[in-house]
């Protein structure tokens, strides 16, 4: 019963956040002084790519698509209806291309880059942090200082330095892109090996920073736990170190699960720029191109996807927390 109330409460919170995000996503680009459609169409005209009749067609298409001639409320309704059908609109910059199609092409690259980085970084970082806290001495000193340094380093700074060191100064890995220039995405050995060799640099630059962050968090949690009464009591009873480590690890783990959700959010933001550094064909590069071309539908579509991903990750972690930590359940159910 308690669990159900807790889950329903959380669900309501996240739905509220999603609605707030949708409103922000809808309203902010519309606050731009001047009609974005006019700006885009005049851009097209200046470029000389399209003329007269064609321009008018494009303009009416956009105005109709966004319902710019309607009231804000019905515009929002149209926006929601389009979203429900998975329609993210049409790109301004690459005119007839749908944003959905562009996102569909970019998203697998981003997920393939981030998901392994998150999971491996989380596991390795937590183990490293726990060992550092328990072993102390030179291992702790080295692991802590390097973790602190790595975790404080912005993702893109490490990315730039790695790119220079491993691809330019000592060219062992390719400099840019998701695969070699001549190949195209397909299920062949040459493509996969090329994609893998392009994968290492962006992956390393993400996972190293992430390991550092997790290790620092885990270490301080574990040190906190090591000083607690149950550890002293266990030591007094003469329990073997292994068992004490297990108790400490389980207790220190809880906040780390929450940390996982939070870091998914920061990793998404950090990885956007990482992709830029390596010209990796994912969401980050798409967003960058969208921004440089004032392609509002693309920007809006991507911010929406990021929001949904982060909200979803947070919700899943809250659910997991509810299952593994009875204290959270009872506290939340009692409070609200």
């Amino acid at each position: 019963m308690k669990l159900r109330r807790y889950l329903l409460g959380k669900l309501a919170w996240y739905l509220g956040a999603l609605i707030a995000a949708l409103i922000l996503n809808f309203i902010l680009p519309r606050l731009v002084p001047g009609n974005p459609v006019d700006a885009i169409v005049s851009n097209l005209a200046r470029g000389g790519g399209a003329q007269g009749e064609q321009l008018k067609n494009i303009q009416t298409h956009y105005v109709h698509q966004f319902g710019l001639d309607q009231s804000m409320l019905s515009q929002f309704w149209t926006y929601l209806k389009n979203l429900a059908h998975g329609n993210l609109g049409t790109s301004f910059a690459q005119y007839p291309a749908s944003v959905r199609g562009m996102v569909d092409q970019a998203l697998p690259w981003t997920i393939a880059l981030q998901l392994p980085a998150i999971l491996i970084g989380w596991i390795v970082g937590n183990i490293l942090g726990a060992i550092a806290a328990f072993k102390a001495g030179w291992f702790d000193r080295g692991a802590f200082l390097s973790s602190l340094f790595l975790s404080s380093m912005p993702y893109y700074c490490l990315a730039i330095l790695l790119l220079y060191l491993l691809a330019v100064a000592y060219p062992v890995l390719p400099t840019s892109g998701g695969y070699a220039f001549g190949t195209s995405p397909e299920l062949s050995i040459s493509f996969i090996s090329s994609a893998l060799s392009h994968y290492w640099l962006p992956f390393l630059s993400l996972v190293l920073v992430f390991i550092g962050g997790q290790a620092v968090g885990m270490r301080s949690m574990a040190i906190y736990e090591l000083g607690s009464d149950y550890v002293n009591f266990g030591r007094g009873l003469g329990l073997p170190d292994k068992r004490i480590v297990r108790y400490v690890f389980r207790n220190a783990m809880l906040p780390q699960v929450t940390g996982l959700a939070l870091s998914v959010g920061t990793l998404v933001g950090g990885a956007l720029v990482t992709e830029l550094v390596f010209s990796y064909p994912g969401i980050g590069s798409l967003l960058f191109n969208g921004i440089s071309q004032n392609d509002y539908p693309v920007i809006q579509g991507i911010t929406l996807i990021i929001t949904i991903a982060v909200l979803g990750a947070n919700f899943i972690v809250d659910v997991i927390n509810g299952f593994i930590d009875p204290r959270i359940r009872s506290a939340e159910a009692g409070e609200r």
Partner: protein
Amino acid sequence: MRSARFSGRFYIAAAIFLAIAILAVFGPMIFNGHHPGQQVGGLYDGPSSSAWLGTDNLGHDVFANLMAGARTSLEIGFVAGAGATLIGVVVGLAAGYQGGLVDNILTGFTNVMLAIPSIVVLILVSDSLPTRGTMTLALVIAATSWPWTARAVRAQTTSVKTREHIDVARLSGARTVSIVAWDVLPYLLSYVAMAFVLQISGAILAEAGLSLLGLGVSDGVSLGIMLHWSLAWESVRVGAWWAFVPPTVLLTLIAFSLLMLQSSLDEVFNPRLRRGKLRRTVAFVVGPGATSAPEATVAAHEELASER
């Protein structure tokens, strides 16, 4: 009152940060060389006696840009950090002390703001701005980064609120504002100081990230903008290290020193995190040999603590 004992780590971090700040503020006066926007050479000229760190893609002096960029980044960091901390403290205090409906509304708002990734709001807002001045961008960053401070301040306020001296203050007829300012806030100051340090670092990095995406300040140069242009003009792939290494290193140093500053402040304020000292106290009370911690480990930690 016993003065706080800062670790060596604190002084190292403070020294790094101060050195960068001095370079940013007084650098242009001391090394009176080129202006940030002045053309002194061609595309990616290497370091020379006239331009110590070479030139960037537009032929501007990288060293002059670096000092101006660090200044912009630090300005944004301080303004946004102060703004975010201020909003966070006010919202947290109001929610935590007032309770009831005010608490529900403010906490709800904070949680929603926390759940929406701030990078998304930053991208949307800065993309909607017609021009992005340094101060505007700082305020936008402040407006998106206060929620976690508010949440933590609220949690601590609710616990301080139940202490007895608050009842005494209330019974003696003190007004709410005065209780919050003089009887609650002082207990949170150590936390607020740490949050401020983290907010500065977060704001500087947020600005750099936005600049890299092409949404940086439009009225000057910042560390992020330097990186943006050096990436856009392929300085990394042509090996022009002087264009991208200085801003990268400076950003890393700023972030690292602020994080070290925060964590050494944390050790001063939270004695439980000081492992070496804690163990020694235990050993002293119980008697030597009673704890399982080998003396060597304790000594190593003491040394580490003083070394940092």
